[in-house]
């Protein structure tokens, strides 16, 4: 096809949107709403994953030491613990540091500690981090065997239950997103199909005057693409605003819950929505045409 024909076809797709403004608005709205819902779920599950990650990274084993170990013994212990399988990090916390950390945590109630400050009752300890929650029990029992270790503290039960819950949430979020994705595709392609159906007559006349199939299909393809793009753009914009609102209003009330920063997450999600919307719009409007082209 020649350039002037292409110009005409692009013009036709724009005019098609204008001529069928009602249908076009309906399609864009449907796409915007369903893509927005999809986007909300994606963002929510990304955040859940992030929360899970943060919690998992905080899983630790605390090994308390006897007071009478010499400095060399502490160093040896640190090396020995680091050498264990699944251990990712070992930090030595002496009793003074432990006390000041405790003070910090207590904040205004720190004066409770004044009475014991003279004879710090806390012990020197190691904070041991492991690769995943399921290794906590194993590593803890190994650390317990070392000489100089008085007591090992870990919350294996809580941790493993928590990680099971997190895994379940992740899997179900993925499932819901898949389901929503399919629903979105169906809703959008159905809307676009209706728009195409309403123009059956136009297609018939085009066939009668000898239009080739591609000549007929291109404006519909471009039109669907533009409508999909518009719907996805609206969805992304609203999602962006909604996340701002969430950060400003909800996040401040839950300061201890880790939340993903807006960027680059929303950029990626928006890009995904726009790709999906454009693709469904374009295909959804040109595939159902096939039936009418058989004239």
């Amino acid at each position, binding site marked *: 096809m020649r350039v002037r024909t292409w110009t005409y076809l692009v013009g036709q797709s724009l005019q098609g949107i204008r001529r069928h403004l009602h249908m076009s608005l309906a399609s864009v709205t449907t796409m915007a709403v369903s893509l927005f819902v999809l986007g909300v779920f994606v963002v929510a599950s990304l955040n859940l994953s992030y929360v899970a990650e943060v919690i998992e990274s905080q899983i630790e084993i605390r090994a308390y030491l006897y007071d009478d170990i010499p400095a060399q013994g502490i160093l040896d212990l640190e090396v020995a613990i680091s050498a264990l399988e699944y251990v990712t990090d070992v930090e030595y916390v002496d009793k003074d540091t432990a006390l000041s950390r405790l003070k910090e945590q207590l904040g205004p109630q720190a004066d409770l500690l004044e009475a014991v400050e003279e004879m710090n009752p806390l012990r020197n300890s190691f904070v041991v981090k492991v690769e995943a929650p399921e290794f906590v029990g194993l590593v803890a029992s190994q650390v317990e065997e070392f000489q100089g270790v008085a007591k090992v503290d870990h919350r294996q039960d809580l941790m493993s239950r928590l990680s099971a819950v997190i895994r379940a949430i992740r899997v179900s979020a993925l499932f819901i997103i898949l389901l929503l994705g399919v629903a979105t595709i169906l809703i959008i392609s159905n809307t676009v199909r209706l728009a195409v159906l309403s123009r059956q007559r136009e297609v018939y*006349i*085009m066939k009668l*005057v*000898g239009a080739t199939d591609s000549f007929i299909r291109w404006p519909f393809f471009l039109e669907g693409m533009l409508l999909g793009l518009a719907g996805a753009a609206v969805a992304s914009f609203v999602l962006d605003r909604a996340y701002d609102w969430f950060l400003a209003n909800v996040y401040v009330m839950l300061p201890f819950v880790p939340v993903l920063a807006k960027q680059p997450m929303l950029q990626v999600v928006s890009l995904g929505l726009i790709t999906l919307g454009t693709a469904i719009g374009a295909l959804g409007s040109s595939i159902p045409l096939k039936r009418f082209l058989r004239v």
Partner: protein
Amino acid sequence: MSNKAIECQTRSNRLGVVPMILLENASKIYANKVLALDGASLYIDRSEFVFIVGPSGAGKSTLVRLIYREELPTSGRVVVFDKDLSKMRPREVPFFRRRIGVVFQDFKLLEDRTVFENVAFALRVTDSTRREIRRRVPAVLELVGLRDKQKSYPRQLSGGEQQRVSLARAIVNNPELVVADEPTGNLDPDTAWEIFQLLREINRRGTTVVVATHAREIVNRFGKRVIALKDGQVVRDEEKGVYSSEG
């Protein structure tokens, strides 16, 4: 095959002329089992003006649809421009249709486009230049007497005017053949007469015209070839014929 068809075919074979339209024993059974055309045979030469007449349900519309290949025959052959339509590949069909102008009873205009755009539509699909479009469209609108209505929309026009627009669209490509299915079915007799005058004018310029019609008066006054159908069969084929032999 009717005598006329055989006669025409032998004549053209002798002269080596390519037939414009040739039906050989063509039958059409629709999906709902209706037998619309029952072994029809006919031959139409280049530059002829032919009326297809017959009662409702005689197969006139089906015959027209077979000619511009909206339908394919269930059996038998339909040959147009020396091409067997059943053997035509789908990708050839658009180019085949550009050589034919089609006119319907209900005009089939695009309501949301101006008269100019409706006519230009047939040129757009053929990769025509803007210059060609600006030259050709006003020229055919002039021919059908609608030069001053270019910017009107179909709903602003009378039925007769709308049919002229669709005629203009049918001929803007300079087709070799114009087929019309009841072009004046929705029009009053005076307006109908004007439309037929235009068809005759188009025929005078060398285009073959095939019209399926109920307009008895006009058929009788025109004195052109008449092919009569009944129950899907060709029952009469006369040079300078009338609408019905009984009346």
